[in-house]
């Protein structure tokens, strides 16, 4: 049992299989919502799954001028980073599959892995579009990563802990940290758009400018893995934001303590799933309502209008606590 539980956590829930399944579902929700907002019908529920299988069943091409090893491994690293981070984010109760002091920092750094891997994969494709896309990935990372980190520090300071599970547990009585750190929450949400490279921050993949950026040379299963990584990252990063600011699986009036463990877990998971889908809804809304901005505008805007509010909120928390 001692060996099986961790393996279950990594491969089934909340890791590998769960992330893929829920990621595909969230991707359908996103596509359907955007289609509805654009006055279209939108794809059927099974569509993301069909896309995945189809991509896996495509020929795999590695361009001759690309660095084979880096080209092949980059998507794996991205995917592994996201799956690994899911273990430390509370998914069904305040307690994550595993937690320790400092797992917040580990998760934040694991979640930057897709961006770094995308940079490496694009860079070693040695394609002009991929190279420019890769540079953009990195520039954009500089723009959103610090504000995201600072925003996540808000709840950490408010909860007085470095463990996501403890931070979530501190909100069990209903005192969500969105109240203590409203600015940080907004900053985290906007930085999340940058992290997931979605409109208006889909600059690294900008289809009409650099075709699809770092992913341009990828085909078949490697492209599928890139798509999966970002789908899974949507879930994990949304769950992280929910855990830090929105009380994770908690909700007012639901007496988790009185329920049997399995029911509490199930209800917690459903509550969290709803919160994740709300965040996805926000992402779809921005995607439907905004145009893509330029990389220089993005970096400047982010550091100024995300960095400073996050710092201000941190300052407020530090001084009110002391």
């Amino acid at each position: 049992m001692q060996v099986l539980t961790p393996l279950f956590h990594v491969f089934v829930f909340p890791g590998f299989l769960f992330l893929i399944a829920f990621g595909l579902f969230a991707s359908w929700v996103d596509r359907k919502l955007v289609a509805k907002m654009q006055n279209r019908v939108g794809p059927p529920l099974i569509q993301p799954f069909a896309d995945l299988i189809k991509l896996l069943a495509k020929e795999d091409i590695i361009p001759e001028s690309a660095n084979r090893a880096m080209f092949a491994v980059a998507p794996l690293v991205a995917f592994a980073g996201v799956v690994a981070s899911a273990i430390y984010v509370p998914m069904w109760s305040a307690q994550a599959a595993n937690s320790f002091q400092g797992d917040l920092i580990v998760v934040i750094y694991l979640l930057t892995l897709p961006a770094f891997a995308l940079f490496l994969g694009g860079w070693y494709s040695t394609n002009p579009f991929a190279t420019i896309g890769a540079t953009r990935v990195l520039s954009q990372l500089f723009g959103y990563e610090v504000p995201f980190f600072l925003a996540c520090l808000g709840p950490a300071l408010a909860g007085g802990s470095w463990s996501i599970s403890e931070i979530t547990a501190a909100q069990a009585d209903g005192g969500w940290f969105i109240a203590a750190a409203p600015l940080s929450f907004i900053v985290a949400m906007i930085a999340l758009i940058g992290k997931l490279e979605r409109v208006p921050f889909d600059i690294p993949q900008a289809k009409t400018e650099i075709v699809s950026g770092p992913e341009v040379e990828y085909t078949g299963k490697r492209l599928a893995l890139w798509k999966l990584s970002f789908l899974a990252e949507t879930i994990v990063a949304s769950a992280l934001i929910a855990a830090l600011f929105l009380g994770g699986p908690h909700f007012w009036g639901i007496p988790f303590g009185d329920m049997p463990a399995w029911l509490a877990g199930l209800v917690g998971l459903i509550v969290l799933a709803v919160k994740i889908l709300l965040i996805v809804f926000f992402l779809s809304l921005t995607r439907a309502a905004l145009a893509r901005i330029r990389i220089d505008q993005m970096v400047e805007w982010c550091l100024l209008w995300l960095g400073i509010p996050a710092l201000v909120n941190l300052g407020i928390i530090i001084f009110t606590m002391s």
Partner: protein
Amino acid sequence: MAKLDFPVGPQHPALKEPENLRFSVDGELVVDADIRIGYVHRSIERSCSERNFVQDLYLCERVCGICSNAHTQNYCQAVEAIAGVEIPERAQWIRMIMHEFERIHSHLLWLGVAGHEIGFESLFMYVWRDREVIQDILEMVSGNRGHYAMTMLGGVRYDIAPEMVTKIREGLAFLRQRAEYYADIATSEQTFLERTSGVGVVSGETCVQLGAVGPVLRASGVAFDVRRTFPYLQYDKVEFPVRTSELCDVLGRTLVRVQEVIDACDICTQCLDMMPEGDVNMRFPRKVPEGEAVARIEAQRGEVIYYVRSNGTDVPERVKIRTPTLANLPASLEMVKGGYIADIPIAFASIDPCFSCADRMVELNDVSSGDSRTMTWAELVKLSRRKS
């Protein structure tokens, strides 16, 4: 600092047409731009002088799928001028209506594409949804969604029936209202402004020097519109302003185009009001007398010029087409130089490029071996110096 060679086209999502733009980029900045055209060269001018006047109508229509009506109309004007034929008045009004319909459809299409280029998918979807209204009207009037084949030598092919008029009026009222809404979006949506304001700037003076035409020229503050300066058809009888903008950037061009949609709706309404009853076409001689003529027309992208020379047979001796995109290309290269890579698609799209109109080519045939080859510009210059 090493520069990266950054190709756009012939197959690129930002371009719906195959064209090769080469940019020298330093990080995100465009240092130099060059264009290589000729991928869509379909030898139309040559083919025109191998077919008779009526067949050429079909060919000229297919110069461009978006401004097809402008091409046939222009061609007909030139040929009719050589033949000295005055077409029925009602036909002139119907030609004008088709001309303005096409302007509406083309400008809306452009607005959608502009949204697409800056990643504003919803604008793209909404504009194209509304564009279907004008497509339906065009289909109702002419029988086809594109390549309407409305214009023929000696008039127009179909009349606009009274029951169509009410539908057209309804459609125009709707489109006018939508165009006003899009003009509002263009000036109020923050991300749209960020991407269009101050992008692709080219001054009116430069525009004139480089020979730019149409909305590009007007958006740089030069009030030139063939419909007003050299009125053709019945344009001297309708009221419409020549829209200009002092902004000189992509936003200016957007506004000029959106306002022209509104004007086009108004012109169409006036035409429907003033149109007299009568024939819509007349018999046109198969052989055209010897002579030559130039016709100019304000198509949606700018001035189109047709030069037709006849030698008295039923086949024209020469048909020469000058299209607005070719005239606007030098200005478009000025727009992207010194800008960001991200601005290339939108700045370039802001001239509403249509390469199928513009394509010219130089082909070098080695007579002895029969090989044809392409040459770089430097090689060509060297060759021309040697020969001269």
